[in-house]
């Protein structure tokens, strides 16, 4: 069991200089506790991948700090990063990124070997892990012979082989159909809960929210509060529930943009289509 905490403080990333500079991540803070599953959502281009790359020591922030259990990994020299990546992080990618020339077993064992395990030990450990993940029959297959779900399970085994504190996954279900995608998400949740790993998942897939302990919404490089939206039944404007004028009728709660609309609603009759679906969208 790991007790490592990842602590991201005021982290920013700017690509390029001057006129053409892009601020991909803008002063983001976040702490991830052991055993926690954090889901970072947001539209395409909002900076999710950039943030995850910085959390995994693959990319240096242009501002702010990232600490892993007290060590400021964002300040480490290039030479010390491979060891951190190898032992503290497990990565899972949308494209699986398995090594095409190696068998399933070798893909997983080699990461243990890179961390110093002997060939025999590495292979035994990889075989055990893969078997646990239901790939016992596929050990000698080449990645090209596997289905998408199988490839992602190999990638998960590879991410776990060195017992890392954190699993970082970027759009892990984007190339999978929704049933397999859900299986993979449940697997990741299981890993967090049973093995005490922290799991950070980046996705824009709404269907996987239910496995997360915490959902964060990233937009234009910064976290926004997740607010619940409703539609004013009178003027049909989108309103934030938390700030709206509300009223009860027949055991239902309604949200309005103004007292005027509420009064009109309470005074008149309920239209047939008054039960507008509530949508959850993010606003500033």
């Amino acid at each position, binding site marked *: 069991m790991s007790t490592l905490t990842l602590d991201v403080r005021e982290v920013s990333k700017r690509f390029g200089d001057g006129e053409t500079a892009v601020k991909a991540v803008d002063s983001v803070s976040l702490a991830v506790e052991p055993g926690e599953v954090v889901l970072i959502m947001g539209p395409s281009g909002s900076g999710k991948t950039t943030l995850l790359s910085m959390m995994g020591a693959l990319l240096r922030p242009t501002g702010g700090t990232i600490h892993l259990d007290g060590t400021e990994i964002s300040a480490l020299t290039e030479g010390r990063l491979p060891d951190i990546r190898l032992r503290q992080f497990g990565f899972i990618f*949308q494209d*699986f990124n398995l090594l095409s020339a190696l068998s399933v077993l070798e893909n997983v064992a080699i990461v243990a070997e*890179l961390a110093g395990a002997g060939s025999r030990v590495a292979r035994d450990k990889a075989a055990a892990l893969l078997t646990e993940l239901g790939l016992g029959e596929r050990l000698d297959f080449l990645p090209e012979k596997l289905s998408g779900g199988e490839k992602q399970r190999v990638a998960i085994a590879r991410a776990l082989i060195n017992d890392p504190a954190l699993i970082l996954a970027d759009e892990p279900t984007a190339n999978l159909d929704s049933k397999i995608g859900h299986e993979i998400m449940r697997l990741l949740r299981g890993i967090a809960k049973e093995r005490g790993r922290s799991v950070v998942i980046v996705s824009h897939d709404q269907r996987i929210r239910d496995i997360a302990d915490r959902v964060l919404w990233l937009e234009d490089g910064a976290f926004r509060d997740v607010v619940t939206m409703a539609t004013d039944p009178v003027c049909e404007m989108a309103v934030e529930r938390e700030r709206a004028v509300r009223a009860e009728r027949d055991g239902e709660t309604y949200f309005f943009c103004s007292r005027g609309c509420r009064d009109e609603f309470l005074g008149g009759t309920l239209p047939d289509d008054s039960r507008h679906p509530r949508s959850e969208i993010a606003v500033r």
Partner: protein
Amino acid sequence: MSAEGLLARRSLTRNRVRFAVSVGGVALALSLTLALDAIYAGVANQLTTYVDRAGADVWVGQAGVRNLHMVASWLPASVVEGVRAVPGVADATPILYSTDTISAGNERAVAYVVGLPADATMGGPWDVVEGSARVGRGEIIVDQGFARTAGVSIGDTVTALGRQARIVGLSQGTASLVNSVAFVSFDDFQAMRGGAPVVSFVLVKVAPAASSQAVAAAIGSEVPGVTAQTRSDFSTQERRLVMDMSADVISIINAVGFVVGLAVVALTVYVATLARRREYGVLKALGARNGVLYRVVLAQSFLSVAAGFLVGLAFTGLLAFVVARAGLNLELSISAASLIKVGLFSAVIAGLASILPIRQVSSVDPAVVFRRGAAA
């Protein structure tokens, strides 16, 4: 096997065509050098056969004469007694020698013509397959290969040193790519030279207790106007002459082989690295150090070159076997020196071929793993 070795081996063998091109190219390039070396070594062996097999421990020639090929050596006949008088000399036989042509019908061939005294104990043919090993006046012993090509046999006549001579014996092992050795009587040879009392070389056998080196030195200092050398020195001089004559050709072929081998390996390893650029990025993201990845590239180069070297060696060996069977006056001899040279070549090729791919790998950004692209 190490992680590096595994990655290198897999990335070579999973693309068989590229590996075959790589190994084949290196094999071809290296066997160019190996085969040429072997041919020259073979030719040198043949050219020194007479010196090596004549039976003399020390060769005494005109002052300054250090080898046999294309030289003229004339000594007064009186030196023979002078040589015999030197302590440590057990036996001495004078011979006359000239590079000439022998002809039979339309067939003409270059030959070392040797004039042998009737009582010669050295300098004669060492492997007579048919007829006599002794030549009298008007007689000649020729190489059996020459006889076959010229269509003559025992009893037929050939022309040597401008005179007719009757074949009395056929010898073996007395031909090279360039020439053969023919034996005539000393008296005939002397007569053809106008009867002057001269000899070309005095072949010396040293006493059992004496050293060739010491006897050669003693002859050199006690007999005026001669150069005396041990058989091995004389043979080495002869060999060096061949190698000097062929040095330019060998250098050119070596350079061609080196450049072709380098180009093939460099290109195939570079292409292989480029094709797996993303996977090198994945390995970096997973925590592989640059050094590990450099070793993967180096191992690929070295494995390709080593396989190419072995295939090239096998090919040259096969060529030597085929040539030996083909009945050509040609022999291929693969020497240790040549193997070491080509081995060093190979190592340098593998090292140089890795430079560009290593630069490629070092510049790969591990963050590529999150960019979309074709991957397994």
